[in-house]
């Protein structure tokens, strides 16, 4: 048994005793809608895939910086109300504007998929084998900081995720305030989000259908 299996397997027996105990395994079970036997399989997903909502919050010693940053951000309401994802969205848009101008957006999307393909191979493929295709969306959205730090919220449905587009309001602000970007909102869908999600899906051996919009809908096929 791997060392990281121990607490997970213990969770199985504990949660049988404690009912709604929000253990790591239980949380995964709730997300994936699986039963106790299937949950045993969660325990053999590599540790890093499960190291999320691991109960370490209360032990963190760096929360003061995080809270200050949050208060500073949400006190910053001019010329528009800033959100926690502001700088991240701007970084993605700026990078996209550059690669679109240079005509290398496709290579950039492929590079991004290749770079993070390690995670797809290591965790998401195994998740799909064990729990089905919804694990692809789980791994690409609520499970990764790349998404939960980007999307203000993620609505979880079986085989489907809905997210408010983080790019439209900021792109509108940039165009209104500076007018220095050449990309359009359509470029964001067609030259970033869709190629990246489709690339991850291809790597994971599933298909996805993306319906872009102010609320973007991503379905696994």
């Amino acid at each position, binding site marked *: 048994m791997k060392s990281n299996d121990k607490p997970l397997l213990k969770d199985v027996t504990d949660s049988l005793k404690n009912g709604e105990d929000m253990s790591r395994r239980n949380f995964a079970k709730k997300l994936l809608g699986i039963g106790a036997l299937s949950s045993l399989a969660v325990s053999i997903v590599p540790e890093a895939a499960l190291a999320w909502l691991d109960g370490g919050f209360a032990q963190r010693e760096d929360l003061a910086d995080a809270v200050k940053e949050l208060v500073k951000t949400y006190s910053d*309401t001019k010329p528009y109300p800033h*959100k926690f994802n502001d700088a991240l969205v701007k970084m993605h848009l700026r990078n996209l504007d550059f690669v679109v101008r240079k005509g290398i957006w496709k290579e950039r999307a492929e590079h991004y998929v290749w770079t993070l393909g390690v995670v797809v191979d290591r965790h998401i493929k195994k998740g799909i084998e064990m729990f089905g295709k919804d694990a692809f969306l789980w791994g690409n959205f609520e499970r990764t900081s790349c998404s939960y730090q980007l999307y203000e919220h993620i609505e979880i449905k079986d085989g489907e995720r809905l997210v408010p587009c983080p790019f439209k309001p900021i792109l509108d602000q940039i165009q209104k305030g500076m007018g220095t970007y050449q990309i359009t909102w359509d470029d964001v869908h067609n030259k970033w989000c869709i190629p990246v999600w489709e690339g991850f899906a291809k790597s994971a051996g599933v298909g996805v259908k993306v319906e872009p919009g102010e609320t973007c809908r991503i379905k696994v096929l």
Partner: protein
Amino acid sequence: MTQPERREFAKQTVKWGGAALSLLTVLNLPSVVLGAGPGMGNPLNTIKENPFLQRNDLQDALKSLYVTYDSTSPYPHKFNDVISKGQLECLEFIVSKGLDKEYAAHYVATMTPILLRVKQMVEKEGPDKALQGMFEGTTCSYQLMERIDVKQGERSFPCPYKQALENCKKWLPNRFVLEWKDVCSKLCIPTWTGFAKVIGVNIAVQPGETCIVKLA
């Protein structure tokens, strides 16, 4: 239980009355009690004018913060986790294409309208406004750097990229050939010096785990 005597009652009245008077005196010190220093506006409007307290989207922010800081393995995630990793991934790609100089120039060019506004502030209020505009005054910096130490003519902050690059190399093996010094020399220094040039000031950058940017 004894009834208070008239003399005792008078004593208590004087004691508490005196305290009340003292309190009233304190209340007459607006800067202390009302928190209304020069330019602070009407203290009765403090709550409704506080921009943070007017936000109705804090629950999403708190949830993101909680999920981030409750993810402590394989490394403790921070609020700047994705922006630092995302920037490194893009820089890796850009450097591999030999486009880093154009990339930094593009960053400066797209920011120029804002930098010119900062330049106007510098002309009115002095060169420290340049650092304010580049660091604590913009989400692009204060959401990237965990904290920013503000001194007159100088800003220092923990490098957001060093640990992130180590994490990327460890957890995404064979995906990054970029070195930490490349991040300093191909992203941070050219963009900051480019910003400073548009604003009309000179800066000196001392890269390190704590990076220092000074007006030169």
